[in-house]
């Protein structure tokens, strides 16, 4: 009896510590939201109030006139959706070749793609900037999208998944006279919805949060993505904390929604691939 009692006490202690951890990890989000609805006078009050008694939503309309935040939102949506779709198509095609076809140089090429995971993105950013600038693609959607339309990580993830599809299925289709593009489109892709979903969520979220490339590939405020617009906002309103917090809430909200809806497949994708996760 005494042992069992101590065990429960330990469990409760761990539970309490974990709850404190939640306050630390999620507290900043609450503070972000709380500040965004505070009246200006209350923001610089000391000691600060945790929750205002007089919530205001003014900042949520003001932010759209302070900078073209709506446009930035649209830009991010266009760029993220285009990159996600492009990666799904390009990576799955490459993965099909690596997993289901025989050709000379297969292992070597796959190794080269994998080796690219070791290259930090900051290494290629200078040549890519020079390339995009030479092409006149600064401040264009293609300049924001194309450098990320292929991903080694995505190819690796899908290839591993395609390899688990029974070979007999593919060979039976071949015997029935199916072409490879038919097998790819009507057998392999429909069977791989879980992996494709994980890649889609992962690609969307990491592109939504991407910062350095859109920062240097845009000069006009109309072409900025949400993260870049947020840093512009900081430059112009660096002490207007309620407005900055409003921008942060809006920048974070779509990703949190995607994450909570697709939590399981997101984490599955992250741990399956390992490398290139960040």
């Amino acid at each position, binding site marked *: 009896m005494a042992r069992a009692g101590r065990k429960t006490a330990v469990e409760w202690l761990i539970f309490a510590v974990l709850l404190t951890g939640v306050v630390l*990890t999620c507290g900043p989000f609450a503070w972000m939201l709380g500040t965004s609805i505070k009246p200006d006078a209350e923001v610089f009050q000391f000691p600060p109030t945790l929750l205002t008694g007089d919530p205001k939503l003014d900042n949520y309309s003001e932010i759209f006139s302070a900078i073209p935040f709506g446009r930035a939102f649209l830009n991010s949506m266009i760029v993220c959706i285009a990159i996600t779709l492009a990666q799904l198509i390009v990576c799955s095609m490459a993965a099909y070749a690596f997993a289901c076809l025989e050709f000379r140089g297969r292992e070597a090429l796959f190794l080269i*793609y994998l080796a690219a995971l070791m290259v930090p993105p900051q290494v290629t950013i200078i040549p890519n900037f020079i*390339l995009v600038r030479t092409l006149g693609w600064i401040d264009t959607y293609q300049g924001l999208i194309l450098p990320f339309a*292929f991903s080694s990580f995505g190819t690796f993830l899908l290839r591993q998944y395609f390899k688990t599809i029974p070979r007999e299925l593919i*060979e039976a289709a071949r015997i029935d006279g199916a072409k490879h593009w038919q097998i790819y489109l009507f057998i392999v892709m429909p069977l791989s919805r879980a992996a494709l979903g994980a890649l889609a969520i992962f690609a969307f979220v990491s592109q939504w949060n991407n910062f350095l490339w859109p920062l240097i590939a845009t000069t006009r405020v109309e072409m900025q993505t949400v993260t870049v617009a947020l840093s512009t906002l900081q430059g112009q309103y660096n002490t207007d904390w309620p407005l900055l917090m409003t921008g942060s809430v809006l920048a974070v909200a779509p990703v949190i929604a995607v*994450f909570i809806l697709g939590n399981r497949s997101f984490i599955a994708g*992250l741990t399956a691939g390992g490398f290139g996760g960040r």
Partner: protein
Amino acid sequence: MARRVPLGRQDERVAWLFLAPSLILFTTFTGLPVLAAFLISFTQWDLFNPPRFVALGNYLTLARDGIFGKVMGNTAYFVLASVPAQMILGLLCALALNRGIMGQTFFRVAYFLPVVTSTIAAALVWAWLFNTNFGLINALLSSVGVSDPPRWLGSTAWAMPAVITVSVWQNVGYAMVLFLAGLQNIPRELYDAGAIDGAKGWKRLIYITLPLLSPTTFFVLIISIIGSFQVFELVFVMTNAGPANATNTLVFYIYQNGFQFYQMGYASAAAMVLFLIVLVATLVQYRLQTRWVHYG
């Protein structure tokens, strides 16, 4: 059996068609740029005048540049402080959640939330929390009797610890998820066998769990080191590398020289230093992983 379609020549052509889009994109935006970055690092190039070959000039300048020395020191400080902290906290969270505690999914989501959050937004809210005069952190400190709380982002001594804190906050959940996956890979029979030999509680942790978890631990270590060397956005938003370069780190320095000073050659040389560090870390991981694997 006789109608089996021979794999081979016709596969070959189809394969290259399937690979074409990825090959074009990979070559244009990754393959050639890596080579180009290497070549540019031997030039002096401001993008307005033609590049001038300077051989190892940029690397020699890096070696002599006092700011670059400081930058490397700062980066090392950041990596050495943030990696162990996020790993230890991540492991503790994973061990706690792996006990089958109630609300496991809730805790997992709550701890992982910072990982998926935009670093720019996270950096903004933490800059506000660390605000010297009106921030919540100093308000809490003075409420417990600290009469002269740090000036945090405005102080050369405290700016870096503040940036490290945010990095740890953002990455604990990532380490936790990887550790949890590792813990769930440990076969139950080993614990049952251990129980017969009297391994319980701490003993079980030290003699069974931790050794069997070591491949995961090593993987998390390398991933964290590589990620930490690339810190940029936190510095960009919270301190803009200040005060007095106290938080200037390697990637910020690359950004600064490339895109603020337009010294493409010099920035590329600094980028090559980053590449070398990441390469060494990855090769160490690759060489040692076989030695760390305890189960098949």
